[in-house]
């Protein structure tokens, strides 16, 4: 007999996500992914200055707090035909690179780890054994028995207050928790260490962009941090040295803690290479321009599409094949809900038709989410670190292939284990690894360029709106921590006419489309066993492996009317 369970709120994510799942004989047989929050930022953007758009869209998300800025300025630059100075491209690479690494660290330790690590079990660990384990996986500096004993005492005292705060009602003692107490203690120690580390390494954003979250430094045409080695008010040698210090800190933690942790935990959870695959379609736009000709040329991480898990064929991305459905989303399309629309031509009229809150279940046969359903050539896609690793591997990319083959040999497994919950989680760690390795190269490229006497950070040619054509449109892509991100902008009379973002979580968390194809979250849950449906830890494992970001995923745009006429009416 089927039994429908609801997990709402899905916690340890950004935003508001609800999963409804049908369970039969202890396994998930069907699932529905619903976003339950809507703001309408793209509608708010209409009529505004396109040079401001990055600042508005940055607030799609405060976690991946640079990514919409980057996609937005690239979209406007694409629309107006602006080439960005090389210094600015490298500064963007450094900002994006550390964003990805820091975001992945937070995701693994603070949003995902408690799906695998049992804090209460750590209280039973022998700290000497944990120390031996730590010393066997890397030469990380915090590895003594005394150190792990102090962490254990701290957690023990905390638990003894009986007030567990954010750890109360966790899945402690759940039958799906498999780690021995000693590994759990190592995980808890690293949870706390990572909590301190993430605020250090992201200081690169403060040095280059004033603050984090929401760095304030992006400009259409460049960046706002001046470069001048002979000024104390600009990027100079002292600041470069400080940035290098944080890159080294990130490098050490990723190599000595993060990647070894994933490899240490994975053997206990190898059954999770069998669950969570979903559709085997992967999409990446590519990222990190490295040549003088600038974005979108010379990208270090390649773009492309792998379909049906076929690693022998990689398809080039054509943005014209991206469309969105609203068949099961709370919007109306003129022309009917069975149609799909390209972001330039799309329209969205919010129309909530779900149950009036408070409610117990959504009408999943009808519309059931604020997320739309993007499709590439009518196929659902997965985006994110796994997609980037899969596409890169299929293209034979040097660093990606090296990282994947090393991991597969450590785990003594074949490439098919990538297509899974655990594969997704491991891909994120591998991406962090190759990114911290690459960041010093961008620093070198920046320094070598400054050395030639080039201090340019902004291209002023099209800064003045008087220099713009009456009509322009463009798109900007970016590989965000959570995957392929695209912004499309239509400019008319110096103002934003239309704005549309198709973001990573929109791809992954999408509801069904007009052809009743499930979104990737939905598909990936099918076949997952639940040891205790009352405590659906396994659902969290697979959903968290995508690193959901729901505030990003929901947005609206309305093709009609502009801001000015509405102001007059008021």
């Amino acid at each position, binding site marked *: 007999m089927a039994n429908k369970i609801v997990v709402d709120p*899905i*916690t*340890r994510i950004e935003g508001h996500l609800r999963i409804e799942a049908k369970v039969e004989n202890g396994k998930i047989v069907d699932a529905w992914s619903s976003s339950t929050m809507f703001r309408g930022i793209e509608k708010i953007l209409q009529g505004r200055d396109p040079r401001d758009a990055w600042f508005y869209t940055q607030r799609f998300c405060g976690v991946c707090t640079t990514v919409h800025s980057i996609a937005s300025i690239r979209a406007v630059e694409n629309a107006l035909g602006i080439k960005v100075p090389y210094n600015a491209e490298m500064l963007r690479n450094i900002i994006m690179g550390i964003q990805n690494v820091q975001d992945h660290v937070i995701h693994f330790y603070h949003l995902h780890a408690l799906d695998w690590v049992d804090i209460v079990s750590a209280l039973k660990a022998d700290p000497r054994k944990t120390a031996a384990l730590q010393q066997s996986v890397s030469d990380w500096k915090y590895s003594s028995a005394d150190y792990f004993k102090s962490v254990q005492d701290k957690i023990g005292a905390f638990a003894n207050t009986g007030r567990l705060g954010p750890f109360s009602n966790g899945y402690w003692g759940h039958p799906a928790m498999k780690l021995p107490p000693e590994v759990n203690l190592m995980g808890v120690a690293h949870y706390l260490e990572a909590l301190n580390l993430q605020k250090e390494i992201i200081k690169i954003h403060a040095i280059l962009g004033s*603050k984090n979250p929401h760095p304030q430094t992006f400009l259409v045409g460049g960046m706002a941090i001046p470069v001048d080695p002979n000024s104390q008010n*600009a990027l100079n040698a002292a600041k470069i040295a400080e940035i290098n210090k944080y890159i080294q800190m990130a490098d050490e933690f990723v190599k000595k803690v993060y990647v070894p942790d994933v490899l240490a935990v994975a053997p206990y959870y190898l059954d999770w290479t069998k669950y969570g695959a979903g559709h085997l379609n992967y999409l990446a736009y590519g990222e990190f321009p490295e040549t003088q000709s600038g974005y979108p040329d010379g990208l270090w991480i390649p773009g492309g599409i792998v379909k049906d898990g076929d690693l022998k064929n990689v398809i080039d991305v054509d943005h014209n094949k991206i469309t969105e459905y609203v068949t099961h989303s709370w919007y109306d399309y003129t022309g009917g809900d069975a149609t799909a629309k390209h972001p330039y031509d799309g329209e969205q009229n919010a129309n909530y038709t779900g149950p009036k809150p408070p*409610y117990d279940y959504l009408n999943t046969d009808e519309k059931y989410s604020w997320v739309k359903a993007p499709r590439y050539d009518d196929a659902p896609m997965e985006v994110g670190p796994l997609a980037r690793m899969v596409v890169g591997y299929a293209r034979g990319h040097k660093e990606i292939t090296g990282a994947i083959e090393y991991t597969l040999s450590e785990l003594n497994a074949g490439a098919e284990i990538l297509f899974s919950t655990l594969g997704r989680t491991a891909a994120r760690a591998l991406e962090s690894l190759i990114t911290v390795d690459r960041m010093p190269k961008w620093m070198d490229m920046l320094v070598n360029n400054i050395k030639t006497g080039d201090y340019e950070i902004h291209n002023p040619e099209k800064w003045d709106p008087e220099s713009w054509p009456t009509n322009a449109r463009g798109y900007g892509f970016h590989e965000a921590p959570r995957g392929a991100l695209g912004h499309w902008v239509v400019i008319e009379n110096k103002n934003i006419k239309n704005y549309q973002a198709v973001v990573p979580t929109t791809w992954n968390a999408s509801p069904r489309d007009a052809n009743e194809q499930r979104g990737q979250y939905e598909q990936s849950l099918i076949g997952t066993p639940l040891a205790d449906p009352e405590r*659906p830890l396994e659902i969290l494992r697979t959903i968290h492996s995508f690193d959901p970001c729901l505030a990003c995923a929901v947005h609206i745009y309305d093709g009609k009317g502009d*801001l000015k006429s509405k102001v007059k009416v008021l």
Partner: protein
Amino acid sequence: MNMAEKMKYLGVSRRDFLKYCTALSGTLALSPAFGPKIAEAIESDNRPPVIWLEFQDCAGDTESLLRASAPTAAQLILDYLSLDYHETIMAAAGHQAEAAKESTFEKYKGKYICIVEGSIPTGADGAYCTVGGRSAVDILKEIGGNAAFVIAVGTCATFGGLPAAYPNPTGAKSVQELLPGKTVINLPGCPMNVDNLNGTIVHYLLFGAPPAMDKFLRPKFAYGKRIHDNCERRAHFDAGQYVEAWGDYGHKQGWCLYKMGCKGPETFHNCPTIRWNEGLSWPVQAGHGCAGCSEPGFWDTMTPLYKRLPNVPGFGVEATATKIGAAVVGISAVVFGMHGIVSIIRNRGLVKKVESSEFEDDDK
């Protein structure tokens, strides 16, 4: 008040209390013998319980919380507060998460601190934001309404923020609009600077009461002065030295960003003094103007970002800056009073009409 006194105050007997502790040791998977030990620890445990609600947010304020340094996020979570509900951080999900919230709500009604991140949509019967099938408005009224006091973090929770910007598609509102009469402390900023949240919490723990606030319910220790008055580039403003283009000589030399659209003269916030990420930097220091993010309605009144303040008669005069600040604080007041038709403020003509008297009682 220690925990034993609190329990007595709440009418919980010693016996009930021990029973509760034994039950707790069960949920912790510890042996029941731990019961009395837990009771001992709880009695000396003065951490205030906190329920952190997220509505129409981007989690930027949560991320800001994670950047805390004095105390650190780990210390806040383990030593200073009992963060009983926080969707982004907590281990439990779904029913287990909601049960944690209910438990704190029942046990500490009127005693817990409620922190709210994100605006609250009132359109579509609350369907623009639901958690566990309940609308944000409902949850806020129950949890916020029964808190000891509410801290609204970030400009969305304090003033409606981005979702409430024109044309406010979801009918987004601020905490104080929905909880009239409740003690609300506003910590605006996009995001809020965690040093100001820490300052507010430490103030409460040290002095046992919320800090003094201005008319927008912002603590004076953090929002009592204009950015312009504490700006490290103020001397360049007074000397008439302005950045004219990104990357020009003045930009490299750290001159005033006023002509590049800086909203520092309009904005009350302590960015120039405490700065961000452990005092490392802030927008003007890094070469980009202030966006005015701690002011009500800034998404409509302070944009376009790169447009300089309107109708300024000349530069480089001390009196001018004060006048600018006065006029715009006045606008903020108007925006706040007229919430819902905030978009009208996009008509720059209004700037001129605002009286400077609004500003006077604020600066004392």
